[in-house]
């Protein structure tokens, strides 16, 4: 995903010299080409995230379109107040890019697990929160956020994510992409969970269920209409995200569904338990521990089926 991002950014920077990249001394084997091709549009701020964001704001207030780039927690939490006051309050044209969203840096440790970033970024006024679901969406999202004036949080995975889209879909910030139409079960996925959701959708379909699969790449502003339709046209809604179940995509969808008139489908949020991981594991291992692999998700769905949470499912 990060490769798709940097390639798209490289192209954009070639045609628009306002596009700049500020890194927090991270991005080995990712950012070199950009730095060489666009030396006047590239800055390494050093291991200094507060200044990284401040610099980006100063550049943006002077007419630039500035992407900051760091590992998710460093580029968001370390400098949260700079993002709130300097980026968001000033509506600065800064795009905060995080690599390693979720458990992508699994065995590097809890410091590197980005499990609350979406919830925190989503709470900030003026902030747009985008978590593309595969490399194709990452590329489209990069272009879309350049075209949109103002603050954006762009949450990427790492490398090697499966391409889910057979071809480039129509991509619009704030508009879910319907990957499958169906009226039994709705799966709403963001970020790297799109691939898993796609796999689960295939398995459920094979069992004879009609599955609606939405790629909710923009968590804020949320596509409320797509959520409303899912909650009124299917029998049960699941959100899938590599993020805490508190406050991220699941929280955002829950807020919409909770305010619908009676009679809508129930919601089950599937994501990370809101706790620090206590054992070492790589991304896939830890995801499985949280029930975020395809088998785990199938078990969750089947358990609800047994409990009759969604009658007929």
């Amino acid at each position: 995903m990060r490769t798709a991002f940097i390639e798209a950014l490289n192209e954009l920077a070639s045609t628009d010299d306002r596009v700049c990249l500020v890194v927090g001394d991270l991005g080995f084997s990712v950012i070199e080409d950009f730095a060489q091709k666009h030396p006047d549009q590239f800055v390494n701020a050093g291991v200094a995230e507060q200044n990284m964001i401040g610099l980006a704001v100063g550049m943006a207030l002077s007419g630039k379109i500035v992407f900051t780039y760091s590992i998710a927690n460093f580029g968001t939490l370390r400098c949260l107040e700079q993002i709130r006051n300097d980026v968001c309050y000033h509506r600065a044209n800064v795009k905060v890019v995080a690599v390693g969203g979720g458990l992508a840096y699994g065995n590097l440790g809890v410091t590197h697990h980005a499990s609350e970033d979406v919830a925190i970024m989503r709470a900030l006024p003026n902030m747009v929160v985008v978590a593309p679901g595969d490399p194709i969406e990452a590329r489209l999202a990069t272009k879309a956020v350049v075209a949109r004036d103002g603050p954006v949080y762009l949450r990427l995975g790492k490398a090697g994510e499966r391409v889910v889209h057979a071809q480039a879909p129509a991509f619009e910030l704030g508009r879910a992409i319907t990957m499958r139409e169906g009226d039994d079960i709705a799966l709403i996925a963001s970020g790297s969970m799109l691939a898993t959701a796609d796999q689960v959708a295939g398995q459920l379909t094979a069992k004879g269920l009609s599955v609606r699969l939405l790629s909710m790449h923009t968590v804020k502003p949320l596509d409320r209409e797509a959520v409303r339709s899912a909650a009124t046209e299917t029998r049960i809604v699941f959100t899938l995200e590599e993020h805490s179940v508190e406050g991220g995509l699941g929280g955002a969808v829950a807020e919409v569904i909770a305010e619908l008139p009676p009679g809508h489908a129930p919601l089950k949020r599937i994501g990370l338990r809101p706790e620090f991981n206590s054992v070492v594991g790589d991304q896939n291992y830890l995801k499985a521990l949280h029930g975020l692999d395809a088998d785990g998700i199938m078990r969750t769905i089947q358990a609800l089926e047994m409990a009759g949470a969604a009658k007929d499912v």
Partner: protein
Amino acid sequence: MSAAPAAPRPATDDELRALARKLRAHSLRMISQAKTSHIGSCLSVADILAVLYGHILRIDPRHPDWSDRDRLIMSKGHAAAISYAAVAEAGFMPIKRLDEYARNGGQLYGHATHVGVPGVEMSSGSLGHGLPVGTGMALTAKRGRKGWRVFVIMSDGECDEGSNWEAILFAAHHRLDNLTIVIDYNKIQSLDRVERTLGLEPLTDKFRAFGWSVREVDGHEVSDLRDALEQVPMEAGRPNAIIAHTVKGKGVSWMEDKVLWHYRHPTEEELAKALAEVEAS
């Protein structure tokens, strides 16, 4: 957006002193009437603001967004009252608007706010934010071969914030000689004297060691301030730190050098006495 370049406005020392008196008087009235804090911090920075707005800055109040203007960031956002007074006296907005200060329904918050306030480059209020942003502006001007300059006014207590030292490293490394900070070194921070909280000395040596040009000035002597600010960049390739030795509460004898006036507002009676002292100075 763009407009004809505004030449620096020459001003005599007497004119700058008169402007500083006006700014002190405005801030005393605003803070007394709104019953807010930070009069001591306003009075200590009055002469610095007078010299910058009255003489140094290349700005055009009719075109606040003029792309080639000098940028002034008031990073010590708690001195908002006098900052608003300075942009109003510079002509960015009617003096009458100062009545909105910290008033319900107005736009002049108690910490420096850019929304709806032309001439204020950046909102501040949480310390340690202005210099990184100013550094990004200076980098952009440098890379774009633009002649505009960036000035950041900081407090001494603000130097405790680590974010500043990140920017201080960065600005020297990138040779941003178009960046100038003025430290309003009034020796008192929020709870106590600086030397009893987190001592900054030797401050000049610290900046030198970080690769900055440094000059210490009497922050209440307009000719001294003018001379220092006219001479930036002091050395090609080095950012500039002007350490302005000031007195908290300067201009009102019984407010001077006291922590109390970081918090208290003058009563109506005290206001009249304070204004009389400022007028007579």
